[in-house]
């Protein structure tokens, strides 16, 4: 029973990492209706930027804020420079551009920073709580995830810009007719996603260590989490992330052993989606014409 509880706690801790990555995916999805496969590598690259700043002697929070801001700008720039030319191309062409972006970022990071793992500091105290099964950092990750979620909720719900972004994603033509610059809303969505990704990267790195392949596995779980929770619902993404973390741990520890734990977790997720095709909390669009 004790071990069971610990597996659940540890699953929640890992799950909060998936949750925050899933949040970033949901951001871009809400803005563009596309899943950005390069999201993980963008987060990894941002984390290296933070590492560079820390290495140069910046205090942690300055590096943190600087990285988030810089990532926001880079996200906007990527949308305007890399994605814009294929805006009107078929969806799969855009997916291929994402894949191109993914391999470029991965390879360039390896080239600049080499593949040796680097430790990345945590802003939280180096302590463990709850009998050592959750570290202060992991708890901090959960808190930050919830905080980011709350900020996003407030932003989308109560600011004109947030409203405009939602409108632009849903109905670009009507949005232009009320004066919304739809192109910039997409870029803004990318910027926000990149900024959240940067936060995710900086919180993940102290746990998994920083290396160019840091986000590969996590993105995959984040993708599953986002779909499980409902790709258009930030709160759902967080619940999905936590659920995937726990599910994975329990299936590994009690169901089939570690050799097939990923397989089983994925089968379960797909199973849930068969029953609820738009995810646990996905919005079912009600519409009368």
């Amino acid at each position, binding site marked *: 029973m004790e071990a069971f509880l610990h597996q659940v706690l540890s699953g929640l801790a890992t799950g909060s990492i998936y949750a925050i990555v899933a949040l970033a995916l949901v951001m871009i999805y809400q803005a563009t209706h596309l*899943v950005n496969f390069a999201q993980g590598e963008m987060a990894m690259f941002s984390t290296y930027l933070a590492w560079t700043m820390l290495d140069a002697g910046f205090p942690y929070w300055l590096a943190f804020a600087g990285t988030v801001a810089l990532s926001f700008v880079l996200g906007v720039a990527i949308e305007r420079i*890399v994605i814009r*030319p*294929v805006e*009107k*191309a*078929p969806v*799969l*062409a*855009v*997916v*291929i*551009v994402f*894949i*191109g*972006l*993914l*391999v*470029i970022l*991965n*390879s*360039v990071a*390896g*080239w600049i920073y080499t593949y040796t793992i680097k430790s990345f500091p945590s802003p939280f105290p180096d302590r463990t709580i709850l009998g050592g099964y959750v570290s202060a950092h992991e708890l901090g990750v959960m808190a930050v995830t919830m905080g980011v979620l709350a900020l996003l909720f407030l932003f989308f719900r109560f600011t004109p810009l947030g409203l405009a972004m939602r409108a632009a994603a849903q109905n670009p033509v009507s949005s232009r007719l009320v004066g919304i610059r739809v192109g910039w809303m997409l870029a803004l969505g990318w910027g926000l996603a990149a900024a959240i990704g940067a936060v995710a990267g900086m919180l993940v790195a102290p746990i998994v260590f920083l290396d160019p392949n840091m986000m590969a596995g996590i993105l*995959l779980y984040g*993708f*599953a989490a986002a*779909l499980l929770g409902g*790709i258009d619902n930030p709160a759902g993404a967080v619940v999905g992330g936590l659920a995937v973390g726990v599910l994975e741990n329990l299936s590994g520890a009690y169901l089939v052993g570690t*050799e*097939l734990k*990923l*397989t089983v977790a*994925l*089968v379960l*997720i*797909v199973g849930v*989606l*068969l029953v609820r*095709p738009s995810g646990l909390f996905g919005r079912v669009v009600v519409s009368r014409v």
Partner: protein
Amino acid sequence: MARLLGPDGRRVGLALLLLAACVLPFLLSSYRTFQLTSALTYAIALVGLNILTGWNGQISLGHGAFYAIGAYVAAILMDRFGVPYWATIPVAGFVCLGAGYLFGLPALRLEGLYLALATFALALATPQLLKWKHLEEWTGGVQGIVILKPDAPFGLPLDQDQWLYFFTLAITVLMFWLARNLLAGRIGRALVAIREQPTAAEAMGVDIAFYKSMTFGVSAMFTGVAGALGAIVIQFVAPDSFTLFLSITLLVGIVVGGLASLSGAIWGALFIQFIPNVADHISKAAPWAIYGLFLIACMYLMPTGVAGLLRAAAARLDRAPPGP
């Protein structure tokens, strides 16, 4: 181009292409012949994925799994049961037809991204399952299976690479012919109708469920045949050969080549076979960065793939006033 040359011109063009394909192995080194053989196997796999994704609009990020099943069926039959190599190909095709059809049944309920996730899961699970201890007796576990390369039969004056090339070429021609007949007629129209106007297709009496899951099966069959050929060409199968990256590579192939285009499969195959080598040649420090640049450049210049670009060029030629 088709209209420009007319149906006869097209037939002549194909014949010339085939002739060139037959002459090439006598002009090239065995190594180049081997590369072309492997490009041909990719082309078959790409036709398979293209039937599903290009024609029918179902996105699969997991076709590497069917490639792997085909490869392992061939390897296990040859290694454990002494089945001759040529006989493993149809078996691999049928096994994948079944596997694809079965996977297609639940996939019916999933669309777009969700289908992408399900197939993605398949791609991730495949190497894990191949390593699984309860299957190790068959799959050879992490060590994989080494198989022998066939000699040319009937005392033909061909070396192993040349013979395998012709063997693969024959199967490629057969599979392309099969795909063309399948897609040119009623079935092809039904697939496109399901992709473009599912509601209208249903109203017209198209059995969407059957078509979609069967498309999955047929698509997997093509890819499985390619996998079996790939295993024989490489003489080795192992879980590391069939990672998620293979599935992604196949997707890259059909998009760069051109969706819903048979000739696109050839262009795509050439791209995924040769461009990584070019990238490696340009930079050892970051070959993937070069590869990524190639990908993005391709999508900028040819958002509908090589085949789409050629089609547009041909249309422009047709429209242009005839010369003096």
